[in-house]
């Protein structure tokens, strides 16, 4: 039986996976993907069945854990944000070579417009690179349905399958029709072809041509996919190629039907035949896709095209940022200025008196004390550089602290500080959070230990993964032990509570650590104010909202 639920795109995918017989979800929190795992953690069926839903240390460990479950024949899913796919790229690309056994979904949420990210990378490129099929739901209902479809596709092709979400789908709620019962889980069973799971050259050389052949088969699969569709239109002066969530904006503009022949793509590899057919009957093409111009690049050669192709690369559509109905309307009006149906009154002007309201560290946040003390400690060193990392404390870059000089990726604070110190920078200070430290800081700290690098590493420990809303952090309660285990000497490892009353002590501790020749690590600790409130609400009197 079907029931209606109001679900975020993330939640629809999560429930779809549970209902399709998921046995384990793995992942590392990252906006806008976090709610996939959180939904499974709270789901009654998942609890009853003991579906794995514990956070992993990083996306690479999560990916390999999910692949291990797939190897054992069960259905697994790994969740991450787009840049998380970089962190597990080694595992991901090679899992095209090993393939999957039990169905495996790689749920990746891209963040066009960079609401909460460093870049706009588009995961569809990764799929093509690794010969892995990609499904790109247009709405919450498809996100739900693609979980089951994706597991079947994964088992049929014996490959992992990417489900590519984008912010606007991940974080938008809609009414979704879902099954009221979950399908049975797979039994434990090993792959029939064991060789491809051992990627020694002898096996890889056999596997690679096979993988290329499977990908060709997948192209044919795309031609008949229920998620790829040719929609006839009467005006052949333009053909439209539209993918994923962009389809919704097109439908919004033409409630009575799209006048131009349209190919809608939500399953990759790109269905070449459908596109060839469209281009043969149209005078020009417009490609509308959320993210980077993936389909457009595939269509547009270096040499002259058969038909003019319009999209992000020729400026018909905005090149950066997420799409919206206005962008799609503007693009269509550039190509078809006479399209009266799309014309509308000029909207009101943007108010001139509003000013941006940037995010800031919460009142009562320990990161504030770290940056306050650090700025005071470094006042006498004009050449000091602070290498930052990914988390709430990245906000230390903004006023009033203006304290951070670099932010690259998870874990880069320690390693970039090390490299800079070797170039002669002093003081070189790394500021990294506890969750980011266990995600990708450990190996870098080992490098620094081995060379006794002349840097100060501040681990600003708030006992949680704060930025994404307070998920369990894998190093909680173990940070000092981890540092000692990596070889940081006990004399150079300090712990202090990040509290306003400790300001002077923090300043002098930072100063003496900077003056120490060689590696110093300061663990500055205070529980995240948001999780304190939540814990307080559980224990103490109930809050209003």
């Amino acid at each position: 039986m079907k029931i209606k639920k109001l679900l975020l795109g993330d939640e629809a995918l999560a429930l779809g996976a549970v209902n399709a017989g998921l046995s384990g979800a793995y992942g590392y929190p990252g906006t806008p993907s976090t709610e996939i795992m959180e939904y499974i953690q709270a789901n009654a069926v998942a609890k009853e069945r003991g579906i794995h839903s514990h956070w992993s240390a990083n996306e690479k460990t999560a990916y390999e854990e999910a692949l291990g479950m797939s190897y054992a024949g069960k259905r697994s899913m790994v969740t991450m944000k787009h840049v998380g796919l970089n962190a597990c790229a080694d595992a991901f690309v090679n899992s095209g070579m090993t393939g999957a056994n039990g169905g495996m979904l790689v749920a990746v949420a891209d963040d066009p417009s960079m609401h909460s990210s460093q870049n706009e990378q588009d995961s569809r490129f990764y799929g093509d690179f690794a010969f892995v099929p990609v499904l790109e739901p247009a709405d919450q209902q498809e996100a739900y349905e693609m979980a089951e479809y994706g597991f079947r596709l994964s088992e049929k092709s014996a490959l992992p399958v990417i489900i590519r979400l984008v912010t606007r789908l991940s974080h938008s709620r809609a009414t979704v029709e879902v099954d009221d019962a979950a399908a049975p889980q797979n039994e434990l069973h090993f792959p029939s072809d064991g060789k491809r799971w051992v990627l020694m050259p002898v096996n890889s050389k056999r596997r690679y041509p096979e993988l290329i052949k499977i990908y060709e088969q997948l192209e044919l699969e795309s031609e008949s996919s229920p998620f790829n569709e040719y929609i006839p239109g009467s005006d052949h002066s333009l053909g439209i190629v539209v993918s994923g969530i962009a389809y919704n904006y097109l439908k919004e503009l033409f409630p009575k039907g799209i006048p131009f022949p349209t190919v809608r793509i939500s399953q990759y590899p790109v269905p070449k035949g459908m596109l060839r057919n469209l281009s043969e009957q149209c005078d020009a093409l417009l490609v509308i896709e959320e993210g980077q111009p993936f389909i457009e690049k595939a269509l547009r050669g270096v040499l002259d095209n058969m038909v003019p192709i319009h999209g992000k690369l020729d400026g018909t559509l905005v090149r950066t940022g997420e799409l919206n109905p206005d962008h799609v309307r503007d693009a269509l009006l550039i190509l078809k200025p006479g399209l009266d149906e799309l014309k509308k009154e000029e909207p009101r002007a943007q108010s001139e008196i509003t000013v941006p309201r940037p995010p800031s560290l919460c009142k009562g946040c320990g990161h504030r004390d770290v940056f306050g003390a650090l700025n005071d400690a470094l006042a006498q060193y004009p050449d000091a550089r602070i290498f930052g990392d990914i988390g709430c404390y990245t906000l230390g870059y903004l006023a009033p602290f203006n304290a951070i000089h670099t932010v690259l990726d998870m874990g880069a604070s320690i390693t970039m500080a090390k490299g800079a110190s070797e170039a002669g920078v002093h003081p070189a200070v790394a500021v990294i959070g506890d969750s980011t430290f266990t995600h990708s800081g450990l190996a870098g700290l080992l490098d620094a230990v081995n060379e006794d690098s002349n840097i100060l590493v501040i681990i600003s420990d708030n006992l949680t993964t704060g930025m994404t809303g307070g998920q369990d952090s894998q190093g909680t309660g173990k940070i000092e032990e981890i540092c000692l285990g990596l070889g940081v000497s006990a004399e150079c490892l300090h712990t202090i509570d990040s509290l306003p009353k400790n300001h002077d002590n923090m300043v002098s501790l930072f100063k003496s650590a900077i003056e120490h020749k060689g590696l110093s690590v300061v663990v500055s600790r205070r529980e995240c104010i948001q999780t304190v409130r939540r814990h307080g609400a559980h224990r103490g009197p109930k809050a209003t909202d």
Partner: protein
Amino acid sequence: MKTDIILAGVGGQGILSVATILGAAALKEGLYIKQSEVHGMSQRGGEVQSNLRISSEKISSDLIPTGAADLIVSLEPMEALRYLKYLKPDGWVITSTAPFVNIDNYPDEALVMRHLEDSGNVVAFDMDELARQLAAPRSGNMALLGAASPFIDISPDKIERAISSVFSSKGEKIVADNIKAFRTAREKSLQIAGM
């Protein structure tokens, strides 16, 4: 019916609860809903905005085009102004007048109010103050929902039922406080709008 609403406020003010409750009420009515919101970095005291679309017909886009919103519903006056370009010419602005000043360059408050008054159809009063007067100090967001409710084609009973169910885990007093704020603000809004 079809109502497109831009919900606005500052991270932590409780604007997403307003969206949750309206969503729950609309679902009970058998209506279609799309509600888009942004999580993550912006929730740390930054501007927060949600697109809420409720309709008896299927909804395509998660985002409301410019010039198409029926309502701007805001817990903060400058945040209401930020989204005016999305409002229909005959749309309504429902906003709290209490400024949330967490930035140095917040514009002159009197100027913000003047711009609001000039924006057309406006219902503006201090939602937090109303909640305080009712001795329900944390119900400012439900007061805002009450003020917006006359402009949304869902019966107030249904919205109240959704408030009860969303807050039920927090105890009867909280539910009663929030409903009181909802009702009082609804009455006040009906008066101001001359409905």
